[in-house]
C-alpha cells in the first residue's frame, strides 16, 4: 500500500494551512492510502486537547472533526517533541493517539513514504 506523509507546520495563525493537510490525509485514508500526519512548529498546538476545536476554516469541516475522522480511519499522528517543549506543552495535555517523536522517527517516516506533502 502506498504511504503518504503530511507535515503540518501551521496552527491558529493560518487556519487554512492548518486544515488542508488534515483534509488531504483524511482523503488519503478514504482512498486506500496509508497516511501519517507529523505536527511540527506551531502545528503542535493542534495536538493539545481542545485546541483544534477553535479552528474552523469554512468551507472545510471543523478541524476537530477532521482529526477525529483521521484517527478513526487509522491515521498515525506524530508530534515533534522539541516543538512541544518550546511551547511548554506537556505529554498529558495531548489528544489521545498522538505520539511524541523526535527527528529520527520523522526521518524514518519520510524516508519510507511514497511521497511527502508539507504545509
Amino acid at each position, binding site marked *: 500500500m502506498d504511504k503518504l506523509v503530511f507535515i503540518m507546520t501551521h496552527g491558529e495563525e493560518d487556519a487554512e494551512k492548518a486544515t488542508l493537510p488534515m483534509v488531504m490525509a483524511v482523503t488519503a485514508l*478514504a*482512498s*486506500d492510502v496509508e497516511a501519517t500526519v507529523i505536527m511540527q512548529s506551531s502545528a503542535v498546538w493542534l495536538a493539545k486537547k481542545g485546541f483544534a476545536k477553535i479552528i474552523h476554516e469554512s468551507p*472545510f469541516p471543523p478541524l476537530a472533526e477532521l482529526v477525529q475522522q483521521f484517527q478513526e*480511519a487509522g491515521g498515525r499522528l506524530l508530534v515533534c517533541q522539541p516543538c512541544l517543549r518550546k511551547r511548554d506543552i506537556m505529554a498529558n495535555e495531548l489528544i489521545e493517539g498522538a505520539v511524541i517523536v523526535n527527528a529520527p522517527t520523522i526521518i524514518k517516516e519520510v524516508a519510507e513514504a511514497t511521497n511527502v506533502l508539507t504545509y
Partner: protein
Amino acid sequence: MNKDDTLDAKGLMCPMPIVKLAKKIKELQVGQVLELIVDDPGGKEDVPAWCSRTGHELLETKQEGSVYFFYIKKKA
C-alpha cells in the same frame, strides 16, 4: 441503472463526500451498486479518480443541472 443503495452527499464539500463514500462502500456486498449523488463541482473529477485509485468500478455517470449521479460497483 439498477442500484442497491444510495448515498446522497449533496451539500457536502471536500473531503466529506469521499470520506462518506469510502465508509458506505464498505457496507455493500461485492458486486452491489451504489448510487452516489453530489453537487460539489469537484466531484465530477474526484469520484472517477477515487474509483481508479480504489479499484471500484464506475459504471455510469450522469448530470442533472449541477447535480452528479455516479453508479459504483463494489470490487471483489
